[in-house]
C-alpha cells in the first residue's frame, strides 16, 4: 500500500462531511425520536422505550402498507423490465434517427415528477381524458372508466405511470450493456441458426449479468422510495389501496402529526431495506465480482 495515496482521503473528505451532516445526523435524530412520544414537531415528549415500535407493528396499517410496497416493487420491476428491454433492444438496431431517438427517449425522466402527474391525470381523466375518449370511440368501453377511483385500477395505473417515468432511464443503462457485448458471439450463434428468443435468453441475458445485478438492487430500492407520483395522484387512496410505506410515514408525520411514531416506522423500514440489500447481494452477487 502506497502511503502517499492517503492523500485520496483529503479529496473525498468534503463530500463525506456533507453527507454525514445530511444523512448520519438526521438518522441519529430519527432513532432518538422513535423512543419518545413526540406528536407535533417542536413539542417535548417523554421517553417511552419501544412503545412506538410495538404500536406500529400491531396496527393494521403497517402490514397493509408493507404488502402494498412489496406488490408495488414487484409490479414495477416486471413492467419496467418489459419496457426497458423493448426500448433497449429496439435502439440497439440500426435505423435512421436512432441517435436522436436514443438521446430523447429519456425525456420522461428529466421533466419534474409534478409534470408527469399533470400529464397522466389529464390523459386518464374520466371526463376529458384522451384514453377514455379513444376507448369509447373504438367501442371498447361504453362509459368512461374512473381509473383512480377503483382500488385495483388505481394501483395498476400508478405502476404504469411510474414505469413510464423510469423505463427509458433503465433502457439506456441496459443499452450500454448491450453495446459492450462482443458482436462475434452473436455472429457465431447466427451460423448455428439460433432463434431470436434463445439468442436473448442464452446469450444476451447472461452477458448483461453485471448490469442487471446493479439495476436489480438499485432499481428495487428506487421504486420502493417513490413518493411524489403516488402522493400527488391518489394520496394513498382509494381506501389505502395505494398507501406504500413511504406514504404511510409521510402521512403519520405530517397529516396525523405523530412524529415519534413516524420515526419508528422509518427505522423499521430502514431495517427491512437493509436486510433486503444484504440478502440480495449475498444471493445474487455470489458470482459477481467487481
Amino acid at each position, binding site marked *: *500500500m502506497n502511503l502517499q*495515496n492517503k*492523500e*485520496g*482521503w*483529503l*479529496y*473525498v473528505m*468534503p*463530500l*463525506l462531511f*456533507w*453527507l454525514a*451532516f*445530511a*444523512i448520519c445526523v*438526521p*438518522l*441519529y*435524530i*430519527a432513532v432518538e*425520536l422513535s423512543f419518545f412520544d413526540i406528536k407535533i*414537531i417542536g413539542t417535548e415528549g417523554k421517553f417511552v422505550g419501544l412503545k412506538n415500535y410495538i404500536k406500529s407493528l400491531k396496527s393494521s396499517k403497517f402490514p397493509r402498507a408493507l404488502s402494498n410496497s412489496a406488490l408495488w416493487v414487484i409490479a414495477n420491476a416486471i413492467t419496467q423490465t418489459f419496457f426497458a428491454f*423493448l*426500448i433497449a433492444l*429496439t435502439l440497439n438496431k440500426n435505423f435512421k434517427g436512432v441517435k436522436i431517438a*436514443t*438521446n*430523447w427517449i*429519456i*425525456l*420522461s425522466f*428529466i*421533466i*419534474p*415528477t*409534478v*409534470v408527469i*402527474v*399533470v400529464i397522466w391525470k*389529464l*390523459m386518464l381523466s374520466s371526463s*376529458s381524458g*384522451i384514453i377514455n*375518449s*379513444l376507448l369509447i*370511440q373504438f367501442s371498447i368501453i361504453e362509459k368512461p372508466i374512473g381509473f383512480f377511483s377503483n382500488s385495483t385500477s388505481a394501483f395498476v395505473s400508478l405502476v404504469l405511470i411510474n414505469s*413510464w417515468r423510469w423505463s427509458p*432511464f433503465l433502457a439506456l443503462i441496459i*443499452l450500454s450493456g448491450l453495446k459492450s457485448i462482443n458482436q462475434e458471439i452473436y455472429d457465431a450463434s447466427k451460423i448455428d441458426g439460433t432463434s431470436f428468443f434463445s439468442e436473448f435468453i442464452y446469450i444476451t441475458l447472461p452477458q448483461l449479468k453485471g448490469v442487471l445485478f446493479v439495476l436489480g438492487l438499485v432499481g428495487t*430500492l428506487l421504486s420502493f*422510495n417513490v*413518493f*411524489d407520483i403516488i402522493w400527488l395522484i391518489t394520496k394513498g387512496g382509494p381506501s389505502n389501496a395505494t398507501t406504500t410505506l413511504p406514504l404511510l*410515514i*409521510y402521512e403519520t*408525520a405530517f397529516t396525523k402529526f405523530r*412524529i415519534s411514531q413516524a*420515526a419508528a416506522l422509518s427505522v423499521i423500514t*430502514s431495517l427491512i431495506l437493509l436486510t433486503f440489500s444484504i440478502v440480495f447481494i449475498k444471493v445474487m452477487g455470489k458470482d459477481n465480482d467487481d
Partner: protein
Amino acid sequence: MMTKKNYIIAMPLTIIFVVFFFPFFWIISSAFKSPQEIIQKNSTIIPKSFTFEHFNKILFSSDFLIYLKNSLIVSFVSMLIAVFLSILAAYGLHKLKFYGNKLVERGLLITYAFPGVILLIPMYLMLGKMGLLNSYFALILINVTFSTPFAVWMLKAFFKTIPIDIEEAAMIDGASRLTVLFKIIFPLALPGIASVSIFCFIISWTEYMFASIMISGDDLKTLPVGLAGIVGQYQIDWGFLLAGATLASLPVIILFVFVGKYFVSGLTDGAVKS
C-alpha cells in the same frame, strides 16, 4: 415493399413512440386550447381553438415567475456545489486509490438508494433547531445530498479514460495535485462534467417532497411545489396547469438540446466501465 427486417423495427418503434412521446405532444397542444376544448368529451389532438390565454395568465397574473426564480437559484447553486464536491471525491476515489476506497464507493451507492422520506422528519427537526427552515439552504442541502452519490459514480467512467501518464508528467514538472486536477484533468473530463452537471440540475429541478415540507413561505416556493398546489385544488384549472407544466419542463428541455448527448452517454458509460 416492407421487408421482414423493417417490420421488426417499425412495430416496437411505433409502440415506443406512441407511449413515450405522444403524451408530451398532447399536453403541449392542449395548453393552447380554450378551456372548453380541454374538458370536452371528445379529445382533440390538434387544437381547434388556438389561444395564448393560459400562458398569459400564468406568466402575468400568478406567482409563476417567483417560483421559476426560486427553482433556478436552488437548482443552479445545488448543481455548482454538487459538481465541485463530486469532482474532488471522484478524483480521490478513482485516481488516488487509497486504503478503504472500495468501502467509500459502495457506501456512496447505498446512499443513492436511501429512502428520502426517512430523512424528511429528522431533517425538518434539525433544520428547525438551526433556524434554517424556509430557506434556500434547506433545499440545497437535500439536493446536493441526493445528487452527489450518483454523480461520483458517473464521473468515474470519465476519469478512468484519462491516462495517468499525463498527470505524472505534470507532477514531475512540479505542478501540485490540485493544479493537475483543475488545469489538466478538468478540461479533459469536460464532457463528463457537463453530463454530471445536467444530472445534478435535473435532480434539483424536479425535487418535490422536501420542498413541500421545508418551505412554507409563498415567496420561496419552487416550481414543483407551486404546480402541485394547483393539482391539489378541487376544481382544477386545466389550461392554467398545462401551461405551467409546459413552462416548467422548458428549461430542462432547452438544456438538453445543447448537452443531451453528453448526458446520455455519461449516464450509461459508468454502468459498463465500472
